[in-house]
């Protein structure tokens, strides 16, 4: 049976046939896209059905997020969100809570449902909006039932009497610890580590972890994604991460596939102690592949520290306050590991955040190219926080891809301009326009939970470069809506090596579609993030999105 979906317009992203109005699907594959008239030869001798449910909608290729972290999401999503910014979720929007009074009121109302067994954990508190948090403030709301307030930054949390009792943390235990304020119930930086260690049995509880992954499933569907990539399997516990995703995502009802990329250093211990053993293990991971969960010949490496935590490695003139970035391994070790995987023919995905971190990745790639030249090798620079135009030129010549987190521009560029690296460099973070001009295969990702898992949001930032203060940052680095849509469809597919199967609407590809209420290439670019996603189609099966 052939099913023909009619749409107001289909944006195919296939340059040879960019716009159509119908697409014929058999089982999981696209037979043809065009008009009802043009696909007659297919229909004449076969049973078919015309489906009109999307006749007033726009169909685009199924959206792809080539870099997020399901296990991080599984930890965060079970907490109760009370946040200064609005967060949109399939189970309902989290409204903006912007005053201390409203914060306390929201917290009090929510307390009746503990999030983690007996403990209530909320995430999103921000001093600037919600006022300083303390044990006494929480005790006034509730002193017996355990409450943990986790800061938006992740770097601090606060407990009430109930939580300290429940977790068995006494004044004697933490005496003299400089980053724990027992009187005020506050644990920050390394003191946070102490608290997290006590909370781990609850945060990483297998049942709650599953609940988190199930919530992520809804989030991914809600964002219109039909393919995601877990860009560091092994972050917490390789077996647990893989087994739980297998249990929850490998079924008929799951509306997306998951590409799994192993975290090379995290697997060293698991594999037996050396990089060579890790490579042998990673080479065998595809034996575990199922229909929806797949390992390929890909691996994840890291150069420098996290962008949000301001420990990216920067070239001169560095950070305004003179602090240093961090390396995650020595350059020698990075090169050694990269060589192992390069010589075995892997596509290497490298976490790079600062321009010096990027420079190390490029120097290494240049050496490896000299030693063993490869083409279409899939070496991908992930995140791409700060860069220089010269680096963009160079990475283009070396054949690298870029998978950028555009959301940095939105959330961090104002802060970075005023406090961290100055306006010139902050304006050009996520230098995506230059990448397109140099012909680099450039995709966009969320790195969820770092940014919302909504590709249209990533596209909106890359197209408009408007930060949270409403300022346009380096308009020259904006991309066109057409390029923005490429970045979350065909380019993201190329970055994952799946462009032969997904990323455009054309004969022979998987029938993966995202159905929108507005045309992202025609509307005011500032409205792209507000486009409503009506449904997704995954391998020919329709998954409507129910508004709650």
């Amino acid at each position: 049976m052939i099913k023909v979906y009619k749409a107001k317009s289909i944006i195919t992203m296939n340059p040879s046939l960019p716009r159509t109005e119908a697409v014929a699907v058999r089982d999981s594959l696209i037979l043809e896209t065009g008009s009802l008239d043009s696909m007659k030869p297919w229909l004449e001798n076969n049973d078919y059905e015309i489906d009109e449910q999307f006749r007033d909608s726009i169909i685009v290729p199924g959206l792809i997020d080539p870099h997020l972290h399901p296990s991080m999401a599984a930890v965060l999503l079970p907490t109760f969100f009370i946040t200064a910014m609005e967060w949109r979720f399939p189970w309902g929007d989290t409204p903006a809570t912007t005053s201390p009074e409203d914060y306390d009121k929201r917290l009090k109302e929510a307390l009746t449902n503990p999030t983690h067994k007996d403990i209530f954990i909320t995430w999103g508190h921000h001093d600037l909006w919600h006022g300083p948090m303390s044990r006494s403030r929480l005790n006034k709301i509730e002193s017996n039932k355990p409450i943990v307030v986790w800061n938006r930054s992740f770097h601090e949390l606060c407990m009430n009497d109930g939580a300290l009792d429940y977790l068995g943390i006494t004044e004697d235990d933490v005496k003299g610890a400089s980053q724990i304020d027992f009187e005020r119930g506050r644990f920050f930086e390394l003191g946070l580590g102490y608290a997290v260690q006590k909370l781990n049995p609850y945060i990483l509880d297998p049942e709650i972890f599953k609940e988190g992954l199930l919530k992520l499933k809804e989030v991914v569907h809600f964002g219109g994604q039909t393919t995601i990539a877990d860009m560091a399997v092994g972050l917490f516990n390789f077996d647990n991460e893989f087994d739980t995703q297998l249990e929850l995502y490998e079924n008929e009802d799951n509306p997306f596939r998951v590409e799994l990329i192993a975290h090379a250093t995290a697997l060293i211990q698991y594999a037996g102690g050396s990089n060579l053993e890790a490579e042998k293990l990673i080479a065998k991971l595809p034996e575990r592949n199922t229909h929806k969960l797949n390992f390929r010949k890909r691996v994840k490496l890291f150069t420098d520290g996290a962008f949000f935590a301001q420990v990216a490695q920067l070239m001169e003139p560095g950070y305004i306050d003179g602090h240093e970035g961090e390396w995650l391994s020595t350059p020698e070790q990075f090169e050694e590991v990269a060589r192992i995987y390069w010589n075995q023919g892997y596509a290497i995905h490298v976490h790079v955040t600062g321009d010096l971190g990027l420079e190390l990745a490029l120097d290494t790639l240049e050496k490896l190219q000299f030693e063993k030249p490869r083409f279409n090798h899939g070496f991908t620079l992930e995140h791409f926080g700060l860069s220089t135009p010269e680096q963009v030129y160079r990475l283009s010549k070396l054949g690298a891809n870029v998978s950028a987190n555009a959301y940095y521009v939105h959330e961090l560029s104002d802060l970075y301009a005023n406090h961290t690296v100055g306006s010139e460099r902050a304006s050009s973070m996520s230098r995506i326009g230059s990448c397109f001009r140099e012909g680099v295969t450039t995709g966009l990702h969320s790195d969820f939970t770092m940014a919302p898992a909504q590709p249209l949001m990533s596209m909106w930032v890359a197209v408009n470069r408007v930060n949270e203060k409403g300022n346009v940052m380096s308009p020259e680095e904006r991309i066109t809506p057409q390029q923005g849509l490429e970045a979350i469809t065909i380019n993201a597919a190329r970055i994952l090596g799946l462009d032969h199967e997904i990323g455009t609407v054309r004969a022979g590809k998987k029938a993966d579609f995202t159905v929108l209420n507005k045309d992202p290439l025609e509307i005011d670019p500032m409205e792209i993030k507000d486009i409503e996603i009506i449904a997704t189609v995954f391998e020919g099966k329709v998954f409507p999105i129910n508004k709650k």
Partner: protein
Amino acid sequence: MIPLTIISGYLGSGKTTLINQLLREAKNPIGVLVNDFGDLQVDAKLIENKDSLTLSLTNGCVCCNLNEDLGSSLEQMKEKDVEAVVIEASGVALPIKLANYGLTWPGYSLSGILSVVQGESLINLLSDKFVSKTVRAQIEQADQILLNRFQDKDKEILSRLNADYITEKEVKSYWDLIFEEITPVNCFTEQELDQHSTFQSSVLSTDKVINRNRLERYLIKNSSIERAKGWIRDEGGKTWLLQMNKSECNFSISSYETNTRLVFIHTQDLDLNSLDPIYS
């Protein structure tokens, strides 16, 4: 309170050798935490573990690694009867960050940061495109600096860094004593043999060039050698990183320019003169 000491220093500066020496000389059990990426397992195994407790860690900040490896290892150490805990920082760690654990982790107090600086590679590292600032910070954040393979000209460079070298700031109590015993400028000897341990280690440092194939054959033939690690320079002037264990011998080209420097872990006495055939 358990005293916590951070031993910092760039890759190849001699941290592991120093820790082995500490372990040998300690009267009571010492806990050792190895904080390294990449070669971590190799480094952890290089540390001779007698009565002391050695745990290896992975890196990462608590907000992206909720396992909080270091914290949970410190908790585990509390359960054991250790006199002190030493953290071997990774080659790129900023020691001050690890030192914060000594200041803030319940049950611990910070003894200090000891950085091992290797004279032969110092000049190159301080002008290295990627790690010059890291190496500088490791020196500047130290309470005490241990100079390894230093010549007078290297000291001059160090003094220009505004660093106090050789015990200026005091490393407290217990550790002070131990360090006083081993503060001689060169902590490596050409040959380090510990008769009390099943495993011995030897260091080969030479400016002669080495033939890779001959070295490989030598390592395979000598059944006493359990592990070997380090750099060699070959006839073509290339530097190779060697990692050898019982099951395999692996060379990879290294951008780190150095003379040959190899650490051998072996079960029977190793006569360094027997290595003659490996020279080119």
